[in-house]
């Protein structure tokens, strides 16, 4: 059932004080942009959705992904992928192994290798499998991080200001790439940013937290 991501009457309190509330629906292939000044709890909202909310916060309401209630599920059973501002490639693994880490389990060795190579080709990095992530440029790192997350076959994608570390020109390219891939896979996307250009490029509904 492909219904997208629903946040129903979601309220987050910190030590008993209300922090934010949101009630919205992100359809498959749609990008919802959440904006607001820093400290308003944008990243906290993402933590709540992926299931890593720290204990001083309390969550009420329902988070429903494709008809499945995520509340109470551990992060690894939610099928919600996230990209942070830093690519967070694992420095101890090669580019290929980073992708292998993401790639959903199953398949023979050869089949897995083929999927990884195909993934690299898809983001224009053919032949990069054995490279050390530290030798990549910022744009290349962002693309590997995106592909690593997509290979884990998430049902929704969260973006935590993922473009703010890139320079202006690169930013547009990477942003387009991320949106295109998410749309092609019909993923509901929730983008957290404080950059109006990101919201414009997302071309979807915008929620501003206050």
């Amino acid at each position, binding site marked *: 059932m492909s219904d997208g991501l629903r946040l129903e009457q979601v309220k987050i309190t910190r030590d008993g004080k209300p922090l934010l509330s949101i009630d919205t629906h992100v359809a498959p292939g749609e990008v919802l942009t959440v904006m607001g000044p820093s400290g308003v709890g944008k990243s906290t909202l993402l933590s709540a959705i992926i299931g*890593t909310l720290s204990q001083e916060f309390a969550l009420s309401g329902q988070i429903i992904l494709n008809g499945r209630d995520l509340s109470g599920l551990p*992060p690894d059973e939610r*099928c919600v992928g*996230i990209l942070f501002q830093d690519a967070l490639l694992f*420095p101890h693994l090669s580019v290929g192994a980073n992708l292998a*880490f993401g790639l959903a*389990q199953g398949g023979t060795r050869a089949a*897995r290798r083929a999927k990884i190579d195909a993934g690299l080709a898809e983001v224009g990095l053919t032949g990069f499998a054995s490279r050390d992530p530290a030798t990549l440029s910022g744009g290349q790192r962002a693309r590997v991080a995106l592909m690593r*997350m997509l290979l884990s076959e998430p049902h929704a994608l969260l973006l935590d200001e993922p473009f703010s570390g890139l320079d202006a020109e690169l930013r547009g390219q990477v942003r387009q790439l991320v949106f295109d891939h998410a749309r092609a896979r019909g993923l509901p996307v929730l983008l957290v940013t404080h950059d109006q250009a990101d919201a414009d490029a997302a071309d979807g509904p915008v929620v501003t937290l206050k």
Partner: protein
Amino acid sequence: MAQTIRFPRLPLFPALTVLVLLGPVAAGLWGTVLPAFGHLPAAGQTGPSLDAFRALFDWPGIGPAVRLSVVTGLVAALLSLCITVLILAGWAGTRGFRVLERLLSPFLSVPHAAAAFGLAFLIAPSGWIARLFSPWLTGWDRPPDLLILNDPWGITLTLGMVMKEVPFLLLMSIAALGQIDGRRRLALSRSMGYGRIAAWVFAVFPAVYARIRLPVLVVQTWSMSVVDMAVILGPSTPPTLSVQIVRWMSDPDLAFRLQAAAAALVQLALVIGAVGVWFVGEKLVARLACMRIETGRRGHRDRPWRITGFAFGTVISASLLLGLLSLAVWSVAGFWSFPDLIPDHVTSRNWMRHRAGSLDALWETALIAGIAVAIGMILTIGCLETEHRRNLRLTQRGMWLIYLPLIVPQTAFLPGLQTLFLGFGLDMGRTPVVLVHLVFVLPYLRLSLEGPWKSWDVRQATVAAALGASEGRVLWRIRLPMLLAPLLTAMAVGIAVSVGQYLPTLLVGGGRVETLTTEAVALASGGDRRAIGVFGLMQTAAALLPFALALALPALIWRNRKGLLHV
């Protein structure tokens, strides 16, 4: 022309520190090599000859002693690391973990001897655990004839070492976790579907391990060569190689020193070999982990492992805590028959009986620790300030240098140091003991000050300089007062390290310097539990009280300066 007073051209403090760190280790190794190859004029021997090694390998206990040292050491190190990883992988960042962290951190400074006695009092056939289940479950109405303590396989010794090493590795890892983005790495891996333990082990642990590699080596060489814990918990016929070295060193027949020196070199070779094996093991494990990552298996259903990790953490904290408690109970025990859980009556007689002896030992302990830590603090602050003024940074090689005295097994160079002192006709006593304690105190002072010193906001110095303050004034009036809390904590760490030193005090003091630790360990063979309780408890108090002061003093002195609390 105005002359400004500059720091001396020669980096005085770093040079002195290197000398203090390396000098005794190098001299001690030299003093070991000579007699090992038959050169000991004091015993009327001039080398070179291989007689000492021949005698050593003719000793029937050599095989078992070597095996014991290697097996207990490696197993303890490996087990400690695995338990540490299991606890961190399952719990780091959770509320339960913070409870565990708070439980374990005070135990870090409990001296090894006291912890070992505590464990002994718990698991001995007449210990608290046996009493708890007797006679209603076990049917024992007197202590069973079981060889639990000093068992010939060294199992109890291994457990004792694990109990002390896990808190050390845990706290080192927690410090390392602060330097990497562990929380987000974990969140990212979990959002890709990895179970908590798999996510932590594959995505976070490699970065942590890179930062705790030296402490892990310290744990490894320490467990292969520890003496005080092995005397208390380890087997005795034959004992571990290190214990045997100390026995030979204290033999009145000087000829045994040649054999001891040869054994010390064997001990060094064993440790070097084991470190080599460990390095190969690291590569192998990394290889296996990469192969596992390639499969993309997610490692769900890790709940039993998480519970196991928590159980280990709880058992370790509980046995340390109950062990200390049993020391306390024994120290005030009157008549206490098996299987009663508590003594018939409580008495101050034990404390009265050991009053004079324990107070003398306390005074000696405090004096040695005080002088060693004072010199150590001057050197450490001198080094840090020199590095700050000259804009130097501690390299990886420098880090190895600081760790060196902790990595070279004590039994490899301390016997040599004693032999050298003897050879030069120098009097052994308090002064050399202080100098040797300094060797072991310095690394810990540096390690505990490094972080706070470096994270101090240097712009404060710039502001002060712009107001016309000299470098010295900035140091004394701004930096040191602001860093009061970490400075006191470092001193407390240093004192705890000095209080716990057994072998340096025994060997370099020529058996004439009696601290709480040497007195306590000496009681091990006698089995007077009340005396052990008194000395063990005083030893623990001597190590722990400075920490309480280090917490209380800044809170008192800066009670009206909110910005300086919780630094």
